[in-house]
């Protein structure tokens, strides 16, 4: 009971911190592209107006950055304290990418960020533009290394488990950085940031239109942001499609949960909402073949054979092999210094079953099914809002080109009210990704309940509520500073 409470609170705390961190990251990624595009127009055309536009959005970028900076560090604190088993078990697979991320992010941000804000009039236009683009590229590069680590947790590749050190050791760095789960996740995350930045800029610009001020600035910002946002949304759709194919291959339970698919098969239907389905669509999305086989939750638990003869074991078989792996691991640890022959045999058994190691912690087959309702609806919120926001950006861009946007108050309101919705879509996406892979921290190798440290529940609860209070405070501070800057508008001279 205590153990499950500990796992629950530790997960909740991690989700709160990661969700809070993800409020700032996508806006950084998206605004960087928009302000750099504006500055590029300024450098090409030489029109000071575009410099003013770029500088205003840079100011909002800086506010977002200042509040968001270091929120990711809290996650690292949690790894060391609440998830120490996990942190040790993943070994250098996780440590190396995060170390690269830390060093790169620090040097790129310290250099280019400073040139971007302090360099106006001190460096050439082109050097400044380079620094602005590099600030955005640096943020995206940071995301690369975080998502290499996350992609590995979803689909572990390029490593070997060493029972002497109790760590996974990297044997193929290339496999790690070409992990298909990482690649689709990276593009999906970064381009969703473009959507966030675009909706943010369009929404605020529409607020200026509603207030009947900064008209040229607002309309020009909308044009740039809508184009960035539409390009970003199509990239999100393409990367989302490949993410679905990879989930079908490597995390079929996540896909089945996202679809609420109990019994799969060929020509599987895609559920729009309960009771409304498109026949064969899920097979197309998951396998790019209308006749493709997609297993459902029951198939995954019972074991199944695909039409081409591939056999997948049942939950019970996997659990049994997992238990064998852990027993062999324990035996190896006990005998390695006293009986080398018996230890070698235990090692052989461990190596044979190591892919199922995590299943040894699973008590019942039901534990292998994530929260279907939450994952199913989070997926629909993400996709539904993504489509609605794409439509909004297309309509806004069309209205702007037709010179009708200033008169369309309803559209301006819709754009302004869409700002929270793009954040909701992003958070829903992470719920699909992270709740959908439960019970695993590392797919098949380590469940959440084995990854958690043996710390007191009260300690985790205390820090959880501290975070709730502090995060709320910082969010309120950010909103106040942001709103003040937006009310001042772009005509204010900035450094």
């Amino acid at each position, binding site marked *: 009971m205590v153990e499950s409470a500990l796992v629950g609170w530790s997960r909740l705390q991690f989700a709160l911190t990661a969700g809070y961190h993800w409020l700032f990251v996508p806006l950084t990624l998206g605004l960087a592209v928009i302000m750099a595009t504006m500055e590029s127009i300024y450098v090409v055309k030489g029109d000071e107006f575009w410099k003013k536009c770029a500088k205003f959005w840079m100011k909002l970028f800086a506010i977002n950055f*200042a509040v968001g900076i*270091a929120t990711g560090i809290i996650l690292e604190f949690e790894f*060391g304290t609440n998830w120490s088993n996990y942190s040790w078990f993943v070994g250098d697979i996780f440590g190396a990418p995060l170390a690269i991320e830390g060093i790169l992010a620090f040097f790129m941000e310290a250099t280019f960020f400073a040139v971007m804000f302090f360099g106006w009039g001190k460096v050439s236009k082109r050097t400044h533009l380079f620094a602005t683009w590099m600030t955005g590229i640096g943020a995206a590069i940071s995301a690369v290394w975080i998502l290499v680590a996350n992609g590995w947790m979803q689909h572990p590749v390029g490593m070997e488990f060493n029972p002497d050190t109790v760590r996974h050791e990297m044997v193929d760095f290339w496999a790690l950085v070409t992990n298909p789960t990482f690649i689709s996740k990276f593009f999906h995350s970064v381009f969703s940031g473009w959507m966030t930045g675009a909706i943010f800029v369009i929404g605020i610009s529409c607020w200026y239109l509603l207030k009947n001020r900064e008209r040229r600035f607002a309309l020009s910002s909308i044009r740039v942001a809508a184009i960035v946002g539409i390009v970003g949304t199509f990239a999100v759709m393409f990367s989302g499609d490949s993410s679905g194919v990879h989930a079908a291959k490597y995390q079929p339970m996540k896909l089945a949960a996202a679809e609420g698919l109990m019994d799969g098969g060929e020509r599987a239907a895609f559920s729009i909402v309960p009771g409304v389905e498109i026949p064969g669509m899920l097979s197309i999305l998951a396998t790019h073949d209308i006749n493709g086989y997609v297993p459902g939750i029951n198939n995954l638990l019972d074991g199944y054979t695909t039409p081409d003869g591939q056999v997948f074991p049942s939950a019970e078989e996997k659990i049994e092999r997992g238990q064998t792996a852990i027993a062999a691991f324990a035996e190896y640890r006990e005998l390695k210094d006293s009986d080398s022959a018996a230890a070698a045999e235990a090692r052989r058994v461990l190596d044979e079953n190591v892919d199922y190691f995590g299943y040894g912690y699973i008590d019942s087959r039901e534990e292998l099914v994530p929260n279907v309702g939450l994952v199913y609806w989070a997926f629909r919120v993400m996709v539904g809002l993504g489509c609605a926001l794409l439509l909004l950006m297309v309509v806004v861009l069309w209205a702007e080109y037709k010179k009708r946007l200033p008169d369309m108050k309803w559209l301006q309101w819709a754009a302004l009210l869409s700002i929270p919705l793009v954040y909701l879509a992003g958070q829903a996406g992470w719920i699909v990704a992270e709740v959908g892979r439960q019970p695993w921290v590392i797919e098949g190798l380590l469940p959440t309940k084995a990854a958690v440290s043996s710390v007191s529940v009260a300690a985790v609860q205390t820090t959880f509520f501290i975070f709730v209070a502090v995060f709320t405070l910082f969010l309120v501070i950010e909103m106040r500073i942001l709103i003040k800057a937006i009310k001042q508008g772009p005509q204010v001279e900035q*450094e």
Partner: protein
Amino acid sequence: MKYTLRAIYNFYADGFRNMTWGRPLWGLILLKAIFLFLVLRLFFFKPVLAGKSEEQRSEHVSKELIYKSNQ
């Protein structure tokens, strides 16, 4: 080399000195850093494996993993 370092130093120093709206943001960053490293890290997030040798860490985690499989 000396000139370059001095130019870089002046660049940053001038930038910070001439900040207007950036000043409260730096205050916020400083406040957050203090909270993170002097409050959270010191009092609430002590790494469980800190102070142990590599071998002790392996031993600790292996015991945890074996123990949790019997829960």
